[in-house]
């Protein structure tokens, strides 16, 4: 994890906020109960439960960390240790559309950085940043396993393959 920044949701003085009550909605609770049946112990359910939490809230807040710890009998430190290890768990809110540009070698030599730079410029965000309207987050990611159809941009869960700057421009207005 990067050093603590004033707007870092994990800064010590903001960890956690007792006013913010966090609980899975009934549907997610059912799914959580099902997850527990698939593993021989509670701890092993941590990664799928974090995925579930991210589906519900879009990111893993400090409050979510405490909540999941209480569900699985794990300390918040253990849960946060896992959250911070894996790339896919967002430690701060992300835009409605998470634009993840692969820039690894096969994508790079097929002009992935052109797409990445173009997105940052057109949306006026810093790498890793979110537009002020909360619509888009732009990040550079490592190999997505789609090198044969490089370059690839992952938007939330979906892959967009054989991308170009023009195709990206055509895609953006459809993501509102």
């Amino acid at each position: 994890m990067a050093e603590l920044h004033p707007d870092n949701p994990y800064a010590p003085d903001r960890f956690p906020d007792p006013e913010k009550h966090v609980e899975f909605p009934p549907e997610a609770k059912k799914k959580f109960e099902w997850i527990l049946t698939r593993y021989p112990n509670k701890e092993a359910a941590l990664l799928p439960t974090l995925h579930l939490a991210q589906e519900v809230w879009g990111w893993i807040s400090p409050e979510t960390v405490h909540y999941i710890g209480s569900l699985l009998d794990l300390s918040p430190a253990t849960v946060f240790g896992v959250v911070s290890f894996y790339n896919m768990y967002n430690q701060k809110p992300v835009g409605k559309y998470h634009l993840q540009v692969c820039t690894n070698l096969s994508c790079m030599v097929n002009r992935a950085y052109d797409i990445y730079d173009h997105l940052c410029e057109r949306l006026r965000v810093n790498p890793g940043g979110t537009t002020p309207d909360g619509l888009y987050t732009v990040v550079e990611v490592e190999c997505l396993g789609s090198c044969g159809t490089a370059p690839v941009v992952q938007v939330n869960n979906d892959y967009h393959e054989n991308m170009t700057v023009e195709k990206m421009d055509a895609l953006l207005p459809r993501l509102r």
Partner: protein
Amino acid sequence: MDPIKILTANIDKPNSTSIDVYREGGGYNALEKALKMKPEEITQAVKDSELRGRGGAGFPTGGKWSFVPKNAPKPTYLLCNADESEPGTFKDRLLIERDPHLLIEGMIISAYAIGSCPMSYIYIRGEFHYGSTVLEKALAEARQRGYLGKNILGSGFNLDITVARGAGAYICGEETGLIESLEGHRGQPRVKPPFPAIIGVFGGPTVVQNVETLTCVPLIISHGAEWFKSFGSPKNTGPKLYCVSGTVRKPGVYEFPMGINLKELIFDHCGGVPEGRKLKAVIPGGASAPMLTPGEIDIPLNFDSLMKAGSMLGSAGIIVLDDSVCIVDAAWRLAKFFAHESCGQCTPCREGTNWMESILDRIERGGGRPGDADNLYDIASNIGSVVDLKESGKSLCALGDASTGPVMSSVRKFRDEYVYHIEHKSCLPGTRRYRRLDAPIAAH
């Protein structure tokens, strides 16, 4: 050599993921046959086939299975490694998304052979969201038809499979990293021994196999070990998927008998490099594999000949680079990958990968110093090596070794270009860098 369609037999059929289409092509017949065999007979057939793991290391699959102790105090597990994240590799994704039942059938047979407990896991990388939904649907179909669940086809064997999603960490493709991750931990590899076959996931004996390896198993059961060995050469047998990407005209997944010639694959089947360019380098086995020069590519793509040539088949992710690519830039990008993916547990890898990345970045930015090429080579050889067994094993797992592949090979084979870059503070004329150096640095 002509392409074959064995592992990829179903992928172009309409609705190829449905169980009915899979059944029409003879699917699950191998399972029926296997469940009438003794588990040892299946292991023996896999041994006889000389099938070697398709994930990267090329370890004999049947041998791995026979390490599993009988009557261990804890349950035995079969795990499928679908954490395909080696840059340049995209074959498992194709199998998962287009022919999930072949994988499921392979898993049930393999689980039966090793005496697995009634739960098996497919650890799939988190980014393959679509693939995981395809698998979930296929598993539901298999349960409905009685191929999964209690007393499968009246054999008394019980098995269910769970799809466990990773969350974006290359290191979880390392088998003990995968096991840690499946247990709900940070994906940091374990010190070996004990090897997973003795103590693996949840304390039990564990066999971890790559997707493509498992999809070979039903074929061996259906057609026999001799048939399987008729593809390729001794010790390098079977049909094989090759992933071709980079600056090449027709990238994609190609299936050939193990040991297609690399030059033939690139120029005759993949159309070579774009018009007006020349081949500069080929990475034959995913990001970890040392680069080959155009003079070195007249070589069969199998485990043994690539190892002899000082590289490796790895995951068969072939990345083609033409003469417009700056080799320092290419090495930098792969070094950046390994620096990002190092789990941080052991010193040579945690520190060394970052040093290599920053030195390569410095050279790219025109700040190269005389001796940087030697410096890079020295750092790399202190992290490990993928080819020299005497040099490997300095870091805790194979990621450290892997990180040295592109750096060491590019320094050794393209030293002139490094020297030019350092002296002239720019790329070799005619080559280019693909990123902008004035771009802001990522916030993560």
